[in-house]
């Protein structure tokens, strides 16, 4: 893998390079271990499975080794840094070159699965904020509640594709298709333009902010537009992780589904982290959404965690 982080949970993910690693860790314990012979070993945390990794070839130049520095699972606990969990290691896209995406569920003993619910309870408002931003749809409290209920019913936290950093997009992935009618979409966004061009049955009515328009009927036709998240793809090539998910707006139903708009969202592992890391003074929290999450997740957190 070509990325690392310095602690478990949602934390900054960086590309492995001498500058990034040394600045992030100070080359101190628990990251740097020196054996009796004086040989040092460098460690960090895998951004996907939360297990300890060893950094290989940090000081060797690319010309010498023919390869940039990389991280490798060390398959043991590094005290003070990360505890090894075999279940999560085996499900990790970085665990071995033959890994293939498995859309099954993690076992109940997965540590990541348990942490995911706590994270969702603490950061539900930011999860919804990210989804709103990526889709240009204003997600109401009611819709957010429905999505969370679907996530719980389908045990989204146990999806093998779910990690601490892609939580917002997995929440979207677990949800079924929802109607676009009545939703507010960002004015002049790509989605807005696509609907304006391809959906004569739709009236786009500006709201009083001027930034959003509501999707309504032109008064003569039924609006049968829906949106859904599909094709969550994770692949590793040359140690590099590429993760995407499609946001899809369509009209009608099978076998006559018509695509109105489809966008491949690049899942950026640092995005969620940066939002969570904002100082309290600079971060706006949506208390209504946090209360919803607290209420819905309360029982789950005591049984799963």
């Amino acid at each position: 893998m070509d990325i690392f982080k310095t602690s478990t949970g949602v934390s900054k993910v960086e590309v492995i390079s001498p500058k990034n690693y040394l600045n992030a860790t100070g080359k101190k314990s628990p990251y740097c271990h020196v054996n009796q012979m004086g040989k040092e070993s460098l460690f960090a945390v895998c951004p996907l499975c939360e297990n300890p990794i060893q950094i290989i070839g940090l000081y060797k130049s690319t010309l010498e080794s023919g390869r940039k520095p990389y991280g490798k699972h060390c398959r043991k606990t590094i005290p003070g840094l990360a505890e090894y969990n075999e279940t999560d290691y085996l499900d990790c896209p970085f665990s071995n070159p033959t890994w293939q995406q498995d859309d099954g569920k993690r076992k109940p003993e997965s540590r990541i699965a348990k942490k995911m619910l706590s994270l969702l309870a603490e950061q539900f408002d930011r999860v919804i904020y990210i989804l709103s931003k990526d889709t240009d749809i204003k997600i109401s409290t009611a819709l957010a509640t429905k999505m969370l209920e679907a996530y719980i019913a389908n045990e989204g936290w146990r999806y093998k594709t779910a990690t601490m950093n892609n939580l917002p997009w997995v929440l979207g992935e677990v949800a079924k298709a929802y109607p676009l009618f009545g939703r507010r979409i960002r004015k002049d966004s790509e989605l807005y333009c696509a609907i304006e061009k391809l959906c004569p049955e739709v009236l786009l009515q500006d709201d009083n902010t001027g930034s959003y328009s509501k999707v309504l009927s032109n008064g003569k036709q039924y609006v049968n537009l829906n949106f859904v998240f599909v094709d969550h793809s994770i692949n590793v090539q040359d140690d590099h992780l590429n993760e995407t998910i499609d946001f899809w707006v369509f009209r009608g139903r099978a076998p006559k589904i018509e695509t109105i708009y489809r966008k491949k969202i690049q899942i950026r592992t640092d995005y969620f982290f940066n939002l969570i890391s904002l100082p309290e003074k600079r971060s706006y929290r949506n208390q209504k959404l946090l209360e919803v999450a607290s209420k819905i997740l309360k029982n789950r957190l005591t049984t799963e965690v």
Partner: protein
Amino acid sequence: MKDATDEIYHNRAKSDSGKFQDVTDCDSCLEELVFAMKDKHHEFSLGLSTVLHCLSIAEREGYVPKLPPEWWWDVRQY
């Protein structure tokens, strides 16, 4: 099944002069349309999703002709 003499079945709600309102602005619910209703004691609203639910019961119990399944698939709030 409740006895038809029970108060609940005698206090019949009726549409309040056909009044209705789009409620897609509501942040707290996913209802799209509500109908103004009146009974012997109250004025209140009835959501479209409730009307649809009642229609599905009526269809199942044979009180209205069967609707095409595709109709139900296309209904947003069912």
